[in-house]
């Protein structure tokens, strides 16, 4: 069993209104010094079988084509053994 973690984050140039709302709320709650909050996705995939040839490439493709939108997002793929 393999586990892939794909972290999808907004490109720096893209506004993140939700992150801003959280930052605002934090300041309101008296938490000082929070300069910025950015919210992305943490996607965990469980994949049957071992690290087969081509798995990483396949996952890169999925991450680029489906899990993230290159117009506004970057992704990072982390692949490891174990469920």
């Amino acid at each position, binding site marked *: 069993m393999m586990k892939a973690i794909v972290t999808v984050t907004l490109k720096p*140039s*893209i*506004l993140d*209104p*939700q992150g801003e*709302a959280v930052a605002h709320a934090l300041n309101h709650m008296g938490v000082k010094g929070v300069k910025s909050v950015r919210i992305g996705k943490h996607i965990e995939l469980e994949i049957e079988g071992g690290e087969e040839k081509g798995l990483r490439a396949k996952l890169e493709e999925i991450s680029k084509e*489906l*899990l993230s*939108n290159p*117009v*506004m997002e970057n992704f990072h793929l982390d692949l490891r053994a174990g469920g």
Partner: protein
Amino acid sequence: MRFAVVQFPGSNCDQDCVHALQVLGQEARLVWHEETKIDPEEGVILPGGFSYGDYLRCGAIARFSPIMKSVKQAAERGQVVVGICNGFQILCEAGLLPGALTRNEGLHFRCEPTWIRVETPASRFTSHYGTGEMLKIPIAHGEGCYRASPEILQELEAQQRVLFRYCNAEGQEVREGNPNGSSHNIAGICNNGRNVLGLMPHPERCCEAEMGGVDGRGILLGAAGVGRKI
């Protein structure tokens, strides 16, 4: 003209589009997303709704539906393709239109009539209107904030591909007339070939007086290639 209205799992304005087209004297058929056939003389409508629950990103999963290959081909052949709301999101995800639609700046879903301004009559979709003409058309979306790189925005403007812009009741392109924070107040754009339209407002919701107005008729009639009635 006949339209193929695509039904994705989770589409929910499909029947509304069929109804509106019929009210306007056009033909419409529903096409399940797993089909692949679109006739060469048909127009295509990607209706509003929540295809695949809008999970992950709006339109992200739908664009892999089997029908989308045929939609792409139809677009390349110059057939009319209109994406309304979720349909616009799918067109962007599929790369048929540039840019992306992101979470509304106010973070809420918004359903309300909005003013949009016709930017140019130079497209079949806007042929019924004059430059600067104002239409009152409802929106209903949580992720309609249009974003694109500065280069793309510039290109869209230079090529007069921004067909509709949100505005206030006076027709000004100002922040308070912009319901979702879209760049350049963009409500609708077309592709370079001017045969593919994506817009967030729902023209099919205002084709009958009983539904609160008929400002959307011209867009759908224009798509159908019906000339302007003076």
